[in-house]
Structures are given as C-alpha cells and as structure tokens.
C-alpha cells in the first residue's frame, strides 16, 4: 500500500469567472521510504498541493489518502489529531513556537498527544541533527539553518508516516541549504521516513530519489527519474 495516494485532486478559487484553478486534477502515489521532490515555478500550485497532502486545506474535489486514511473525510478534530501523529511538517519559515525552547518545540506534538516521550529516540534525532548543545535555547537565538534543523527534528519526533517539506531551504543561503538537504536525506534514511518536498530550486531537487514536475496545477508530462535510492 503506498504511503500517499492522491486521486484527481482539484482546488478552485472563486465562484465566478475568472475562476482560479490552483490544482486541476492531480493524481500521484508515493511509496514508503521514498524521497520525492515536487518541482514547479511559483504559482504552479505546488504549495497548494502540499497543503492538501497535509490536510491544512480542503480540496474542491478529489481525494487524498495518507497511510490508507481519507484525509478529507475527517472532521477538524480528528484531522488535527491525525496530523499530529502521522504527518511531520517542515516549512520554509521554520515556524517554530517562539515561546518554547528547542527541546520543547521538538517534543510538542508528542506532548500534545499526552503520550510519554521516547527519550532515547528523541535524543538520537537531536544528535543526528547536531542540536545537542542547543537543546535549551529559544528559537530566536538560533540561525536560520539551526532553526530549520529543529523543525526537521520536530517533524521526525512522532515517527510520522509522511514528512512534508515546503521549500525547506527557501530562506537559507546556498551553503546552509546544502547542509540541511543532506541532513534531511540522511535522517530520512536513518529513521526510515518518507519525504515529500516541494521546491522551485532544481539543484535542491536533485537530492531526491524522484522528481515530479508541476505546471499550472497539473503534473508535467516530462518523465524524470534521477534513479532509485540505494542499491
């Protein structure tokens, strides 16, 4: 069973002409363990697509299945809880909670669940992302790259089915971007995560196993495969 399945997804804005078609019938699947990059220019609909995948926004028509669950069939509360447990987000603007320190930010989704924090696991993530000595600091004291690493750690902490990254390097300089991407790839392998990343940067996209192109709300037909990971 693919970890992510999208069927004929459409998102239209507005009732009267001109209707804005952000997504115009997208279908795709992602297998467990894959690292997929969705590439497109700004306005191509890739952000909207990612938001749909994460249940942050509702579609006009079409379905999204994460781990076999129909996202749009859930109500607000159930969807929030599902998101908390099964989806990890990494945003362009890090979006850390400014009033919590690094450790608290990372374990927040776990704590919201009310479950016990698996300390060993969290420590491993923290070490893998080189955040060991920054654990008690507030986000405002960290550089962009460091904040993004915290965001990645937070995304991984609940062992989600899917990690969604929205232009994760969009706000970083090229050097930091490189490092963050390598880390992202490494931890996804190390911890066995599936990653779907959107970006407009072709260079960054190369890190992924598979590249999907989006144009005007539809998947572009150019076949692209940069080769399967590993082997």
């Amino acid at each position, binding site marked *: 069973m693919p970890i992510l*399945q999208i069927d004929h997804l459409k998102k239209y804005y507005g009732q009267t002409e001109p209707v804005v078609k952000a997504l115009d019938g997208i279908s795709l699947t992602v297998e467990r363990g894959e690292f997929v990059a969705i590439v497109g220019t700004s306005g191509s609909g890739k952000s909207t697509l990612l938001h749909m995948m994460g249940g942050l926004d509702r579609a006009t028509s079409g379905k999204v*299945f994460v781990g*076999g*669950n*129909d996202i749009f*069939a859930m109500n607000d509360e159930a969807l929030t809880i599902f998101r908390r447990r099964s989806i990890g987000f990494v945003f362009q603007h890090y979006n850390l909670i400014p009033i919590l320190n690094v450790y608290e930010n990372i374990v927040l989704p776990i704590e919201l669940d*009310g*479950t*016990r924090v*698996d300390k*060993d*696991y969290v420590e491993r993530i923290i*070490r*893998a992302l*080189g955040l060991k000595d920054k654990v008690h600091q507030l986000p405002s004291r960290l550089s962009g*790259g*460091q904040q993004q690493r915290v965001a990645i750690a937070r995304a991984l902490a609940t062992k989600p089915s899917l990690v969604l990254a929205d232009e994760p390097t969009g706000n970083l300089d090229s*050097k*930091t971007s*490189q*490092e963050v991407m*390598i*880390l992202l*790839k*490494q931890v996804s392998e190390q911890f066995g995560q599936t990653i779907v990343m959107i970006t407009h940067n072709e*260079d960054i996209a*190369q*890190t992924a196993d598979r590249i999907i192109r989006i144009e005007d709300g539809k998947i572009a037909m150019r076949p692209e495969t*940069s*080769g399967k990971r590993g*082997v």
Partner: protein
Amino acid sequence: MNRHLPPKPPRRSRIYSIYAGAFVLLIVGYIGAVAYFAGFEPRAGWASVLFALLLLMLGGALVRTLKREAADEMDTLHSIMDGALSGGTRRMEYTDTPLSSFEQKILRYIELSSNQEQKLAAEQNSMKALISDISHQTKTPLSNIILYSGLLEEVPELRDEARQYVASIKEQSAKLDWLIRSLVNLSRLETGMIAIQAVSAPLMPTLTRSVSQIYGKAEEKGIGIEVECLPGVTACHDPKWTAEALFNLLENAVKYSDPGGSITMTARTGEMFVRIDIADTGIGIEESEWAAVFRRFYRSPRTARYEGVGLGLYVTRQILTAQGGYIKVSSVPGEGSVFSVFLPVECGR
C-alpha cells in the same frame, strides 16, 4: 480504503457526572437533615459545610489518584512499545501483571517479524559471502596466469606473433586482476569485514595522501593538481578509507581529462559538514546521468573508449556513507565536472 474503526468506548464522562451528582445530593441531603434536626444552629451549619468540603476534596483527590494511576499504566504501555520497537529492549520485569504479559506478547511479535527480516538479510549476506569466496578463490589461479604470462614473455625464442598474443593475455589478466581486486574490496566493505573507524582528525593529511597517490599518473598526462585547504580543518573520517575514496575521484578526474587540463581540490568547513570539491576539466557528465554514475557497474556510453569497470564511484559512495558523509556531482558536458564530498564536522552523530 478506510480502515474499519472500532466502536467508540461508552461515554464515561456522563457516568462520572452521575456519580458526582449523586454524591453531592447525598451530602447536601444529609447536611440538610442534620441542620433541620439541630435547629439550624449556626455552628452546626459551619461544621457540616466544612465536613462536606473536606469530603469533596478527599473524593477529588482519590479520583485524581485513580486517574493518574490509569495514565501511568498507559505510559508504561507506551514505553513497552517503544522499547520493543527500538530493538527489543525489555522495559519491565517479569511480574504477574497484565502489563508484563502484554510486554511478553509484544516482544514475541517483534521477534517473529524481525526474524523475517533477519532471514532476508542472512540471504543477502550469504550472497555477498559467495562473491567474496569466489573472488578469493580466483585470486590464486589469476596470479598464476599473470606469473606465467610474464614468464612466457621472457622466453627469448618467441615469435612476434606469439609475443603479441602474450602481450594481449598479460593485458587482459591485468584487467581481470584489477576487477577481481575491486570486487574483493567491495565485498569486504559490504559485508562489514573491514571496519571503517571514523575519528575526528585533521583533513589536510588525508587530502595530501590521496593526491600523492595519483600525482605520478597526473604528471604523466600533464594535468595539474591543486589543493586548497586551511590547515586547521578537521572532519570526522577514517583517514585511510577516505583517502582511498578521494583517490578514486582523483583517478577518474585524471582519466577523463585531456592532457593540459587541471584538477582543483578545495576543502571548506560548514556548520555540520566539511565540503571537499574536486573540480576537473574533463569530458563532463550529462545531467540525466548524474544520479546513475554512482550505481554499481554503471558506465556511461560516453566513456566507452575509456578503461574502467564502473565500480569506482560506487565504492567511493559506500565509503562516504559509512562515515555519515555524502557525495554529489555537478557537471557541464565538455567543460568539466565537480564532485562534492561532504564529511561530518563532528563525530558522534
């Protein structure tokens, strides 16, 4: 595709409220009765109120303790699961509690499923072992062939024709030898027979080591090599193996560059990684092949006229990955390629 959801548990909260309500009614009723009989003496009234309050507080404390106990059980459950998933660590002692038997059950299940994985891994390993054995076994006959072809070459009465044939045999055997040796190395690497020990060490010696190994060949071809690296740069790496990996890259760079070209090796420290770029002025690699070149036995059609087996980059990548590093390539066909090697700055990740 929707999973069939289990039926919702009964609305416990309502039951609790009924209990609470009955409790309160009882207390109020009792106090009311006492007050009535005692003739509404104010002191009795205050005493009853105090009694009621204390009772309620105690009740509340009791309920809270019970709830906490339930939460603790839940926690233990989670911890058992976590332990089981992360490698079968036992979190509880053998006690006569339902939780302990639950742990037993979980561990058993994990054991069973990991068994499958283990079998698979074992199969793969035996395959690798086979290859290792084969390559090992062929070593002796191969060295014999080389020996004897060398000896044959030295026979003075050899006719020209025969000498050509011998040269050919010698060449092919050398190739075969090289291939076998690479395979042996590779299999050793993959089966983990050789341990890579990454330590925090200065990078410069490693770089110079790799360069020194290729220097001769490069000079022969007339290709210049430059190394840029600040003296204090350290990285977490195994100097021997990393040098080997870098050597592979340099070898390729020399091989695929025309005479008169140049190779530049630059090392820069980042926050998490040290980046080593090896830039050449060679034939370059098409974008569509950037990911492919690191595959085992892959040879680009454009390199048909060059010697090679297609293992060098693969081995390099394996070595680097084992050290928590990374490699990527960027290239313009006809102008040159840049291979970027990333090594972690700090060990212990």
